[in-house]
Structure formats: C-alpha cells, structure tokens
C-alpha cells in the first residue's frame, strides 16, 4: 500500500564486493514487482536493503514519504520499524515454537490483543490450509508446509510491503505452481506492495505486474511480463528470457513499415516488421525463439523460409528440440506435439534436411548491437 522509491542504490560489502551499483526504481502502490536475474546479480542484496537487513552504502530508499535508508544523511530505519514482512528461501520458521506461535509472532510484536491474535492467526493458517496443524511444532512439517506457514506469517500482520526471496526454489514443480497461486492471491487480497526475487523467468512471468531484469548489480530492463517477453532490449535480456537464437546482422533494405536484414556471414535475409531509424549498412542484432521456427504457418502470417540440415534432435516430451545448420548459421528450433505428428519422424533425424518457416513478426531487433555475441549458449532455456 506504499509506493517505494529507490534512488541510486549502491551496496558495497566490507570485503569490497560491489553487489549493487546504482539502482533507480519506483515501485507503485499495490504493485507486484519481481527482480529477475542470474545468480550473484544482486537481487537478494537489493531486497535486503529494502528490508533493512542490509544497509546500503549509497543512494536512498523511500517508503511512501518516509526515507528509510539514506547513508549520505545518516538515515537508517531498522527492519522492525519498516512495517514489512518477508518470506525467506529456507522458510526461517522458529523451531522452538509451534506453528501458531510462529504465525502469531508479528502480531505480538505489534502488540495486538490476544483474542484478536487468535482469530487472525487462525484465519491466516486457514488460507494456507494448515489450520489443523496450528499446535504442532514447526519442526515437524514438511518443506512445503513450512513454506506455507512462512507465507501465513508474512501475511498475518497485513504489512504494507511484502518481500519474497526465492521462496519456492526448494519446492517441487507441482507444489511450486500451487504456491505461486497462493502468493499472487495473497498479494491481491492484502493489496500490499510486493517485491519478489527469483532467477526463474517462468515464475517471474507468471506472477508479476512488472519485472526488473538485473545483471551485475544493475538494472537492464524494466517492463511488464509481456513487454519483456516480446521486446527484450538487449542481448542479455533476450538470452535470459529464452530467445535461443540471437545473431548479428546488417540492415540491407528499408521500407516504409518494414526492413530487411541479412545475417552476418550468411546469405539469409529476414524481413522485419515495423519502422526503423537505421540506415542500410547499419549493424543490428536480431533474436527469435526456437518455437518461432515452424513447419506450417497460419494463412495470413508472414514468414521467411529457411532450408536447414538437422545436426541434433532431442525429444523432450512436449516438444522436439533441433539444432540446425542453415545458411552457414547454427539455429535452434522446437517442434511442438501438433507439428511433430504432421511429419514422419524418420524425417526428423540427424542429417535430414528440412524446410522451416520463420515467423517474421516475432523476430525482434535488439536496440544495441553487441559485437561479440553470435550464439546463445549462456542460458539454456527449456520452457520457451
């Protein structure tokens, strides 16, 4: 229920590590914002600075109209005075307390009356389906149950800000899905502002109003899940969000509402939709997902045909991942189940030739060309 303003946030640890190097961000009231990025990029550090568990070494953080951290002016509000709550990766339930006592703790700290504590804890536990377990020691629960208790504890005080640090990474895929729903529902019912940290892009896309992609302590892109998914602004973000094909190219023709690029070291030309400022001869980086290389297309879809040789084919259940040699380039394509049934599987073996259609309007041109990137090996995405 409070907007959060972060200005030039910096965190340098005592050993000299710069974990966060200048973050500017405004988180709107009631927004569900996710910090997404690879391991070690400074997500946790940013979150801990917001929570007051870590003191920033530069910049400022404001909750509503209250400055909570501003090292230059010697302002630091300790965590207990920030009206927040947090769910930790390892649940952090207190083993010497029952489930009830764990959930009641924030209310006790807020000096809520006992009768009210009882009701609110019960309600909170009911939401996560653990009402009957109230009197058990927290240590007797399974991992998933523990994380639900942690969620109940985070919600019970109706804080204006809730933080999550990879809360689901210890859970299995199925439970993770259920928990995602519960977390999103909790966010909506409380109306609180939520900051969520994850390195799982699927999770970020499913949960967030907005996503912040971070790398090496800096923000690379901020946007809604759809913006990020469809319009990554850099090689890194595209890569992280599952664009398996990222290649350098050169503009070879510009029209009114489309332009054509030719991949470097290749005769393959791709027609891109939309206007461009770029002139003929300008370098550009293009990216597209493996799923956008199709066998067939809708009648009205524009596409570029690509002749390829399969160098590797991996059946993965819901799809078939192929590594292709085409026009002097290495491409990745996936065929989903529908497409797979339409071809003879013997045509999809290694060494076979195949013609695929690249959906032209899904190919994105990344704003700034990155000279030393041709392949997308860094983040192997399974889910796109």
């Amino acid at each position, binding site marked *: 229920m409070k907007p959060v303003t972060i200005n030039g946030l910096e965190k340098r640890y005592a050993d000299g590590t710069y974990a966060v190097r200048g973050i500017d961000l405004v988180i709107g009231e009631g927004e569900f914002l996710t910090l997404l990025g690879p391991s070690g990029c400074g997500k946790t550090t940013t979150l801990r600075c917001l929570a007051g568990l870590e003191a920033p070494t530069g910049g400022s953080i404001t909750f509503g109209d209250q400055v909570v951290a501003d090292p230059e002016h010697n302002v630091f509000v300790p965590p207990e*005075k920030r009206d927040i709550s947090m769910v930790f990766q390892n649940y952090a339930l207190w083993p010497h307390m029952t489930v009830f006592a764990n959930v009641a703790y924030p209310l006790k700290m807020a000096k809520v009356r006992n009768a009210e504590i009882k009701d609110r804890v019960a309600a909170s536990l009911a939401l996560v389906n653990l009402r009957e377990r109230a009197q058990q020691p927290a240590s007797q629960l*399974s991992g998933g149950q523990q994380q639900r208790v942690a969620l109940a504890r985070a919600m019970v005080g109706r804080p204006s800000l809730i933080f999550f640090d990879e809360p689901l990474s210890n859970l*299995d895929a199925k439970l993770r899905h259920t928990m995602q729903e*519960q977390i999103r529902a909790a966010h909506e019912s409380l109306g609180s502002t939520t900051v969520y940290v994850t390195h799982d892009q699927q999770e970020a896309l499913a949960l967030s109003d907005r996503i912040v992609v971070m790398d090496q302590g800096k923000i690379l892109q901020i946007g809604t899940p759809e913006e990020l998914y469809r319009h990554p602004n850099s090689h890194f973000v595209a890569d992280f969000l599952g664009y398996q094909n990222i290649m350098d190219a050169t503009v070879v023709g510009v029209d009114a509402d489309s332009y054509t690029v030719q991949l470097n070291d290749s005769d393959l030309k791709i027609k891109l939709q939309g206007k461009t400022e770029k002139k003929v001869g300008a370098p550009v980086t293009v990216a597209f997902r493996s799923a956008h290389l199709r066998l067939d297309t809708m009648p009205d879809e524009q596409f570029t045909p690509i002749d390829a040789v399969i160098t590797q084919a991996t059946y993965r259940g819901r799809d078939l991942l192929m590594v292709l040699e085409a026009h002097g380039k290495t491409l990745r394509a996936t065929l989903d189940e529908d497409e797979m049934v339409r071809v003879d599987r013997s045509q999809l073996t290694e060494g076979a030739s195949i013609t695929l259609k690249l959906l032209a309007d899904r190919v994105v041109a990344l704003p700034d060309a990155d000279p030393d990137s041709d392949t997308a090996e860094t983040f192997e995405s399974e889910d796109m």
Partner: protein
Amino acid sequence: MSEVKFRRQPHTGPFSTGLSLLPLLLVSFFLFAMPIVMLIWGAFRNASPGTKANWSFDAFTRAYTTSETWIDFRNSIALSLSVTLIAVVVGVILAFLVARTTTPLRTIVTPMMAAVVALPPLFYGISWGMLGQKDVGLLNTTFRHIFGLDSFVLFNSNSWAGLILVSALKGVAFSFILLIGPFGAMDRSLEEASQISGANRLTTLFRVDLMVLSPAIIGTTILSIVVGFEFFDIPLILGTPAKIKVFSTRIYDMIDQQTPADYGGAGALSLLLVAIVIVLVILQWRILGKRNFTTVTGKTHRTDPWDIGKWRYAGTALIAVYVLLAVVLPMFQLLLGSLQSFFGSQGPLSFINYHKLFANANVLQALWNTLLTALVGGFLAMVVALLVTYAVARSQSGWRKALDLMGWLPFAVPGIILALAIAWEYVSIPGLKHLYGTIWIVMLALVVTAAPMAMRSVQPAIGQLARDLEESARVSGASGMRMMTTIVLPLIAPSFLSGWFLVAILLSGNLTIPILLSTPTSQTVPLVVYTLYTQGQVTQASALFVIELLLLGIGFVLAKGIAALAARAMKRQRDLQQAKLMAIDTAEPQTTEPVALAKAQSS
C-alpha cells in the same frame, strides 16, 4: 514516523557495528587481556604489586640465573612429554577400541572418560597420594598382606613414577575425549579399499587409519603437551614431598613459600611458560584450524565395527585396568579414608570426620563459597562466552577479530599464572584494590579460567543458528533486543544450561585460583581439602572431598540430562532446515482457492 538517525554505520543487529561492540570489547579486555598486560608490566618492575617501583630487569635476572629454575624447567618438560606419550598412546588405543571394534566393555569408556575429565586433578592428587602412601597406602598394605611381606613398597606415589602415572590417568581421558570424535567419523570404506588392495589388517591400521587420523592425533598430542606444562595440583601434592618441582609449582612457591613473596620473579618465569604455550597453541591451530580439530569429515559414513578376534580381550583388560586405576581404586580409597579415624587406621569405621566437618564454620563457609563461585561464576562465564561468540559470529565490524582473540587468550595462560596475573591487576589498579581478598576476586578469576571452555560449549549452538531465523524476527517487527530474547536465547538455552553446569563442575574443583587468591574468609572447598591434607588431616580431607564429589555428581547428572535436551533441540533445528518437500505434502488436498483467500483476508 520520524527519521531514525544512525552514526556512520547502521545497525541491523546487536553487535553489528564497531560501536555496539565497544562494551563487550571493554569487558573482554578487562577480563582477559588486562591481567596479562599487568603480568608483563609487573615483571619489569623491581617491587611488589601496589608499591612504588622502578623499571628494571632485576626480576628476570633473579629468576633466570638460578640453577633451580632450569632444573624445574627440565622437570616440567620431562613430566609433560612422558605424560603425553602415555596419554596419546593409550588414548589412541582406547579410542580405536571404542569406535572401531566390538571389544566388550567398550560402551562404558566414553561416559567414564567424561567423568574423569570432569573430576578435579585435586581428586587424583589426594586419592593417589593416599593409595600409594608408602607405609599405610591401600596398594602397599594390601600387597604386603597378600604376599606376607613386611616392609616392601610396591608403589610410592610421592615419586617420579607416581607423578607421571597419576597425571597420565587424567591425560588419557583428555586425549581420549579429543580423539573419539574423529575416530568415530572415520570412514569404513577407506579401510575396505586398503584391504581389497591386498593389505592385511595391521598394515591397514597403520597405513590407513593412523594416517587419516594423524591430524587429530598430532593436534591432541600438542594440546596434551600444553596441558602437561600447566599441571599444577598433582605435582604440588605428589611432587612436593618427593622434592620434585615443576615450573608451575615453582612459580607458586616464589609467591607463597617465600618471604617476601617474589611477585616479579614469578611473573618473569610465567612469561616463558605463556610464550611456550602460545607457540604450541598456534602450532595446533595451524595444523588443524582453530575450532573443529575433532572433525575428519562432515559426511555420514558407514562405521561398522571391526572384529579384532582375540585381541578384544586384551582390549577389555586394558579398559578394566584403566577403570580400576582411574575410578575404582581412588574412589574406594577416598571413601575408606573418609571413614577412618586416622589415615591407615585398622580400627572401626565411623562418620566422625563428617561430624567434625559440619561442626566447622570454616568448612561451611567454604562450601557456600564454592557453590556461589561455581554457579554464579559459571553463569557469568557462560554469559560472557555467549555474547562474545555471538558477536564474533554476527558482527560486521573489524573489531570482532580482536574480540575473538581476547576470548581465547585465557586458553594460553596456565591457571596459576592467571591467578598471579589477576593478583597483579587487582592490587595495582586503584579502585579495584578493595576487591582483593574477597570471594569476588576468586570468582572473577574463575570466570576468566572458564571462558574458553564456556565458549566451546556455546559455539556449536550459535554456529547452527541460521541467520534467517533472526532476520525473519526483525522483519516481523522485533527489535534487536527482542529478537535476542525471543529467538536466540530460547534456541540456545539448552546448550547454555548444559555448558553452565559443566563449567560449574570444573570451577568447583579448581584449586589453582583460590590457592593464590583466597584469604581465610574466601576459601573454597578444594583449598580447604588441600590445606587439611597437607596438615596431615588426611581423613577429614577425604571426607570433605566425598561431599564435594556428591555435589559434583548431582551437577554432572543435571548437565548430562540437559546436554541430551540440547542435542535434541539442535537436531530439531537441523531437521527443520533440511526438511524438503515430502510426498505427504503433495498428497494433501490443495483446495485453497484464491477466492477463499481473499475472503478470509478481508473479513
């Protein structure tokens, strides 16, 4: 809400900044470092504490040019090395028998060793002094009786042999306790791999087991040498009548048996001993790392015992002999002595000694003093240890290293020297002088002695305390203090309590501190026992020690009980952290709908 100001650095936990460490640093400096500073300072003065003096090297010249000094120094080395040899060899054999074989009686060894470690060295000095008394000691009279001999002396405790044997009884227990952990953690598959490669068992034992465990054995050896240099009670009781002096008893003599007392000289000698001990301790840390010198590996392995055939009975015999010498005989002699009207009397047994003791106001005072210093002193030691250990674990300030170092300092200072150093501190610093001669200075000195042990007992608990347990309290609205009292303290309470009792047991048997720092009104039981014994009131000394042992026994049982609780609590914490998703969890109905959630929240 108003803005909360902070100085330079914020404060995310108690002790996280240098400033919040300051009180603790000051207390630690006063308790742990200041005595040593005063000791050094005192060694370079040419007069007693509390009097005007000039700087000089007199004390050093005086102390180090006497030939006796070097004789005693040699004696210390001889005692320490010979005891270490026995202690480590027997300790290794026993640890091997207990951890790796099916030797009968092996299960009694570990608890018995814990008891022997906890028993005060004074107990061994006195009971063996009696057992091996050459005229009326139980060992000698029984032997003569059986073989019809007249004046044959089987064993004289007041001799080099007595000194070494009796010290070794305690030394064995000490090294066993240090070795049993690594021996237990030894991976059986390493042995199997060796045997599969064609090595027989004996070869395997020497080339694999002993090699893998050699860091632990070397570490134990060094610590045992350190302890050997610090021996005081046993050489004092058994060595003095035989005119055998070691370094620590010599330092004591220079103050207590000499008029005027030579504080400066004693200080000068102490510095050499402290230097030796520090070098050895650093050596040991270098070899094994400071804390986990008992860890071979963190993983759990198969550790099925080895069948060593007929050798098991040799093992059993060794265990039996040790039990006899370290527990049964001394206990029996002490009890018997306490019931005799005079030592060695063949007359009827009676409780007359106990009656006399309870009629003696001094004794009652000493009992009270002991209870007070052990319990309160032990508690204070635990509190200091807890705060220091916690601060060292959690502080982000560079000062925490200084704190860490200071806390371990008493470990490198033998008890008698600590007592001397504290005497210097309290007599020399104006304002502290009136504490001198009271029971409080005894207690403070005991707190310092107990600190390393106290730290060791809280360290595992604090090490296991996951940081996010504390952080989740902070974000739930608890202040630093509130978090300490509601989360940290309850979680480490069992370890704290069990540590407290152990420390109290150790303190209540301590002779080195009161022997230098007590006055007639501030005596403790060990000191009274020692005085009675040296005055020839051996039977009364025994009776008083029996009373002390009874109290210790009660404390021991309490400590063990609480330690079991502590282990349970720690296991619970570990389980909690390791709890991963179980099948039960997914099997549970997941009917929570977002709608239900929203409804309940808005109500």
